[in-house]
């Protein structure tokens, strides 16, 4: 059953869930971060975090350490810690001269990556000696704004989608805080900032979303040229499946299992794709089945009234879409995971201010 929550009337820029899914944080397209907690069956605001000087563009909540990291157009990032009933921010010096666009904790939560319009990725880790977060930069060969990123489950590799139409995989091995990484299908030598691979779908379209599969052997990205691409490195063989589909571009994508991918975007409904072991990418189904609006019988009076007011004879307003989301879906997050590590529920937020939790089927 899909759970629909109308949170705000304006767009939700970004959202993230805490480890046990009892709270979520989101930004209502302004400089604030709102923390919601469940009260009965409804979600209500518990805390409002005001620290950013400009629009908050990205956020992530670490499952184990319960730290919240947010980044904004004010070129800053803050790591928030909940202590004694309130959230305390610590500024992270990113050393970028353009807005930050996206931030994500690594799987082990010992570092986080911030993408920005400065064509730089800041990998930030905690420096115990000075008791603050420091950042290291990955610059080459990024040529344009970073629009999305995703961590490899091994905690070392990072996939970046940017507006130069390419998807890249970098190594973020920070020798100060971690052991040398083991070889993966993406390569052997992994010094910090090494480009492990650069991929393109041959067309031109900003990469809006990028996602690693749960094992980290596959990489999917969606572009503004209405394409979905999946690169598979399974068994050491590199294979790319690209579909130039017929719908409006997708803004976000997420692997739900090794073979199942969900995408959503300007069409306002999530779509499931299947990537099988033969590297075939196929459209499965749209998750939001069209609901038939029950118009009922209109009296002659209502018909003419409607004609007078709206120039239509329809009884109900026809500005509402027949999908659950009334505007573009901008972010998908995994809500619940089943025993085998595959997602069983996922959550979407969009420009309509709604938060919807879906069952994967």
């Amino acid at each position, binding site marked *: 059953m899909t759970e629909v929550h109308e949170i705000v009337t304006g767009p939700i820029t970004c959202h993230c869930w805490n480890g046990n899914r009892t709270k979520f944080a989101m930004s209502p397209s302004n400089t604030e971060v709102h923390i919601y907690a469940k009260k009965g069956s409804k979600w209500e605001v518990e805390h409002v975090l005001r620290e950013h000087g400009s629009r908050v563009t990205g956020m992530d909540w670490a499952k184990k350490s319960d730290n919240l990291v947010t980044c904004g157009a004010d070129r800053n990032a803050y790591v928030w810690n909940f202590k004694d009933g309130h959230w305390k921010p610590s500024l992270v010096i990113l050393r970028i001269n353009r807005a930050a666009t996206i931030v994500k904790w690594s799987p082990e939560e010992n570092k986080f990556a911030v993408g920005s319009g400065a064509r730089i990725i800041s990998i930030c880790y905690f420096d115990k000696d000075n008791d603050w977060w420091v950042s290291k930069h990955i610059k080459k060969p990024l040529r344009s704004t970073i629009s999305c990123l995703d961590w490899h489950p091994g905690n070392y590799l990072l996939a970046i989608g940017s507006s130069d139409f390419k998807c890249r995989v970098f190594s973020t091995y920070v020798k100060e805080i971690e052991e040398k990484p083991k070889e993966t299908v993406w390569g052997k030598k992994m010094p910090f900032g090494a480009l492990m691979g650069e991929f393109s779908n041959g067309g*031109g379209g900003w990469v809006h979303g990028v996602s690693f599969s749960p094992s980290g052997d596959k990489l999917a990205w969606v572009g*503004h040229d209405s394409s979905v691409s999946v690169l598979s490195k399974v068994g050491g063989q590199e294979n790319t499946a690209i579909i130039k589909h017929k719908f409006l571009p997708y803004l976000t994508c997420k692997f739900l299992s090794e073979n199942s991918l969900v995408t959503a975007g300007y069409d306002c409904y999530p779509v499931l794709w299947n990537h099988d072991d033969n590297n075939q990418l196929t459209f499965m189904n749209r998750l939001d089945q069209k609901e038939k609006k029950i118009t009922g019988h209109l009296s002659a009076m209502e018909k003419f009234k409607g004609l007078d007011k709206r120039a239509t004879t329809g009884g109900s307003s026809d500005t509402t879409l027949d999908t659950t989301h009334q505007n573009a879906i901008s972010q998908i997050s995994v809500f619940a995971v089943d025993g085998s590590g595959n997602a069983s529920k996922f959550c979407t937020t969009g420009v309509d201010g709604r938060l919807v939790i879906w069952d994967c089927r």
Partner: protein
Amino acid sequence: MSKNTRSADFRKVDVDELDEEKFIDEPEVSQDDDDTDVISKRESEVKSLTLGGRNLDALKVSLTDPPVYSKDESAKKRNFDIVLDVLTRFRQSEVEEAVKKLDSEQVDILMKYIYRGFAEPTENSCGILLVWHQHAVAVGGIGSIIRVMTSRKTV
């Protein structure tokens, strides 16, 4: 208000050209010399096919290897003229069948030419172009229109 006596030429400077970090498109494989030959060959092949009444084959030939990498505007214009000529030769009733016989890549290229045709309208092209557009969207979906708008490789 005092008159502005100092030079305002600085306003005409193109700062984007001087930006060191400017994004440059990937160096494209441009075969300037071969282009004109290829297009001339295509022109004659298409002509013979249309004269022979094989409009669909003429369409397929005209849509192969569009000069997207060429920096030569005249070569692109010539190729566009060839394609537009083929498109206008179809009758309204034949368009739907023709589009159905194209593969998805060809539909994307066709869409690019349709939109170029809309941008440079002539007397008898608009009507038939709208029919082409209607059927190309039926096959390629809105995605094919998005690809025309986002592609940096223009026809």
